[in-house]
């Protein structure tokens, strides 16, 4: 119930802003116009959304799996840590989005560049959050591991991993928030399909209502993704 209420509230606010400021529709269309655009362009929007979703899913999958694998690797191998850890910090700080044009020039305007962008943007937060969690084993469990002469791998799996699940959850939440941005930016920078591409086109054609319809769809996708990640993360939160 409250989410529906909040949605209604948000839409109401939007409509109120449109009325109150008499903002021209080519800057901010009213919810009604956007709803109409959504309704009239269902097929077009659906097809573009499917493309975007596919890239999103593949990029997320790759980024999360690679990120988890890297974190586990770093956690178990001290030598990997010495070289890779600072590199990770650097890499996380580089604005991955700013690399979008280069990635696109390299990989072309098709799906691969989108997938790589999404993977890049999910990889770092997942790796970083998960790794931090893995390394922050509480003192009493570390004592236990020492006196039980834990081998590195079971120590990782039985103590560090379960303890790091909430951190992994944070990482996934973050990845879920960033991934839709990444796919949109990648589509802005160069694409012939997808919701981002559609936004750009309709923006160029001064069809602001269609652009907002695409934006709404994108927001819905983001929301679902975020809620899924959040659910998982909450499940892991002790």
């Amino acid at each position: 119930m409250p989410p529906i209420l909040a949605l209604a509230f948000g839409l109401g606010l939007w409509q109120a802003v449109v009325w109150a400021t008499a903002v021209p529709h080519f800057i901010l269309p009213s919810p009604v116009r956007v709803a109409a655009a959504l309704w009239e362009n269902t097929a077009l929007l659906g097809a573009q959304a499917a493309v975007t979703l596919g890239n999103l899913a593949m990029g997320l999958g790759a980024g999360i799996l690679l990120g988890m694998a890297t974190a586990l690797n770093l956690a178990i191998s001290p030598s990997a840590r010495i070289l890779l850890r600072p590199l990770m910090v650097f890499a996380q700080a580089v604005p991955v989005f700013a690399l979008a044009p280069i990635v696109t020039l390299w990989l072309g305007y098709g799906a691969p560049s989108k997938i790589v962008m999404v993977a890049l943007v999910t990889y770092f937060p997942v790796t970083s959050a998960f790794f931090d969690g893995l390394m922050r084993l509480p003192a009493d469990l570390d004592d236990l591991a020492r006196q039980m002469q834990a081998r590195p791998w079971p120590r990782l799996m039985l103590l560090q991993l379960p303890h790091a699940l909430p951190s992994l959850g944070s990482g996934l939440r973050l990845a879920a928030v960033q991934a839709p941005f990444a796919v949109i930016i990648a589509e802005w920078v160069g694409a012939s399909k997808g919701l981002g591409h559609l936004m750009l086109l309709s923006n160029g054609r001064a069809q602001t209502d269609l652009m907002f319809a695409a934006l709404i769809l994108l927001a819905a996708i983001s929301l679902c993704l975020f809620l899924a990640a959040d659910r998982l993360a909450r499940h892991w939160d002790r």
Partner: protein
Amino acid sequence: QDKLTLMLDWFVNPDHGPIILAREKGYFAEAGLEVEIVTPADPNDPPRMVAAGRVDLAVSYQPQLHLSRHAGLPLVRVGTLVETPLTCLVVLADGPVQSIPDLKGRKVGFAVAGVQEVMLNAMLAHHGLTPKDVEQINIGWSISPALMSGQVDAVIGAFRNFELNQLALEGKTGRCFFPEAEGIPSYDELIYVADPTRMDAALIARFLTATERAALDIVNDPDTAWQIFRDTDKALDTDLNRLAWADTWPRFALRPAALDLGRYQRLEAFLAASGATPGGIPAADLAVDVSGATE
């Protein structure tokens, strides 16, 4: 001093020669104007910023004016900056595309959504192709790199005075297909647009007169003009701009305020016939001559 905000269509480049020269030589100041020049990030922005009242004047493209008007934006052309088409469809000279029909099944990149789409479709239609026969890709800002790296087979929206030179600098040869040679009526590439309900025609007339003086200076002595232009910003002093300058200055409108209503009427009719707009806006509503306005 009256204030006037002008939004360019793109970052500063030789296309804006008369504007920059007028500023540098103090013609704006002499005309009692304090002109603030703003660059956009998205070339679709300038007409909307004018329509939204955020700037007084914007540099736009004539086809964009027609499309914007049909989208309900209150705009009117008040002056001309470059009076020939600049846009062209560029391919690599040694590439697989030797004529427009070769585009069938290939990838065409565009930089600015909307206007260039209409251009491309019209050129394709002239050769019996439909928009579905090519894959249209938005390539953002990387027009030349996209072509050179082979990610697209052609780009629409390249400027003949610009991208060809850029290709040359990288050791490639480009080939240009001109819209006006492919069935599209000739038009003014760069125009000034304003919001007719809000604009101060007399102020704009003063602005146009100042740029007119600058344009004449340029044709009279293009080399000195280039040096002035180049010295305004270190970032402008590049080989590309030097080459582009030579290709651009002959195309500046020497009578920026003068109006050729026929051009507006023909393009409006053409766009309607090709299905891009419903048509029907009289040329006199699209473009006005402000030179007679007084305070």
